[in-house]
């Protein structure tokens, strides 16, 4: 069940407020992917219908539905969800259920992943891997229909994985989560978040689980991260370890000014681990109800965050 009017809602990070009704159950519902249905007729008068995805219409320079995902690629059902062949390319496939990449040099491109309600995440990357590419992949989570009590993930970098997510379209999830590795997320469109009732919504979450890896890096470049639910578009915090080598540059970061907290967190208040070499630069933002940023040293012994060149998406004013 979703939140009800008047219910006290935990917005994460110790911030709670009275919900003013933006999250009624009705609002959790979402339209299925829109389709074009064409009636066809055979020469003998027999009839059928042809169903196809909507055309992709470009709307601007930030990543959106027209520049991300599998586009108009004709898909065939995948025969396996376990992508474990080193160097293999998987393309033009429709997966249902959890997809797991567990080999290096795998490329997953121009595919659709549709979640089942019980799936804790849609795309897992497991093990110690290098040179994994996930490009033009659409992930559609189970949304309100998830059986998870909190966030179901879109992608989940479980292991120490070198991976680039490029031009992916991810929706109907609660978060996309990162543990460890060398991760690049670029040109992606993460939007229309929906998940279990206890979800802290964040388009991308990194909680410092890679803190003991001196080679960890996370680079968030030129994405549209649009969260119209609670909490944040981009969330980095020292929940589980030290934060090091994180770049958040040239993104469109949108938070709900009714339900969101801060649009972008780099929060050191969760544990006594340092936050170093973090850059938050040149991003266009719309604020949550508490503002654009929560950059807080908190318990972090060392807090090194560079913030520059960021601006309001509408007014262009520096923020």
């Amino acid at each position: 069940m979703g939140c009800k009017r008047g219910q006290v809602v935990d917005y994460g990070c110790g911030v709670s407020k009275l919900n003013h009704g933006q999250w009624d159950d009705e609002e959790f519902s979402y339209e299925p992917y829109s389709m074009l249905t064409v009636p066809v007729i055979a020469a003998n008068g027999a009839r059928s219908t042809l169903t196809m995805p909507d055309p992709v219409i470009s709307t601007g320079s930030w990543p959106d539905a027209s520049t991300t995902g599998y586009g108009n690629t004709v898909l065939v059902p995948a025969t396996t969800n376990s992508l474990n062949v080193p160097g293999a390319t998987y393309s033009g496939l429709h997966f249902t259920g959890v997809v797991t990449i567990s080999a290096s040099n795998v490329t997953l491109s121009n595919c659709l992943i549709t979640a089942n309600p019980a799936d804790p995440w849609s795309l897992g990357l497991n093990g110690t891997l290098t040179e994994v590419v996930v490009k033009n992949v659409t992930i559609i989570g189970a949304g309100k229909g998830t059986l998870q009590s909190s966030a179901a993930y879109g992608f989940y970098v479980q292991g120490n994985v070198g991976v680039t997510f490029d031009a992916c379209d991810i929706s109907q999830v609660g978060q996309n989560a990162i543990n460890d590795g060398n991760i690049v997320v670029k040109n992606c469109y993460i939007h229309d978040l929906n998940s279990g009732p206890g979800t802290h919504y964040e388009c991308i979450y990194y909680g410092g689980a890679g803190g003991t890896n001196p080679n960890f890096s996370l680079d968030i470049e030129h994405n549209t991260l649009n969260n119209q639910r609670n909490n944040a578009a981009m969330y980095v915090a020292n929940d589980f370890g030290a934060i090091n080598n994180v770049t958040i540059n040239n993104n469109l970061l949108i938070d709900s000014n009714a339900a969101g907290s801060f649009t972008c967190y780099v929060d050191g208040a969760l544990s006594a681990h340092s936050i170093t070499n973090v850059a938050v630069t040149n991003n266009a933002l719309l604020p949550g109800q508490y503002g654009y940023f929560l950059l807080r040293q908190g318990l972090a012994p060392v807090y090194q965050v560079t913030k520059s060149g960021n601006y309001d998406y509408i007014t262009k004013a520096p923020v």
Partner: protein
Amino acid sequence: MTDVFNVTGAYDKPSYNGGDVIKVTISGTDTNTVVTTGQVGPLTVPFVATNGAKSTLSVPKTTATFTTVATLPVTIDTTLPIVDTSPTPRTWAVSADKLSITAVA
């Protein structure tokens, strides 16, 4: 009689800008299978022995099944509406040959 449609549609571009003409072309066929039954026989088969003696063999009638498979062309059915459930539904026009539809992005 059964009809199995194997029809696909393809956009003419991977994506469109506002104002572009969107064209979808369909291709494929309908495999029509007709199964009929009919009577065979009864038959009377004459035969002859090497010494010239003759007789006949009577075969009773039976029922046989005849299957005919035809591949039929498919076109857009203009008697039914094209259903566009996008947030901004478009007006789609069917070509004269009924093999494509167009709309403005």
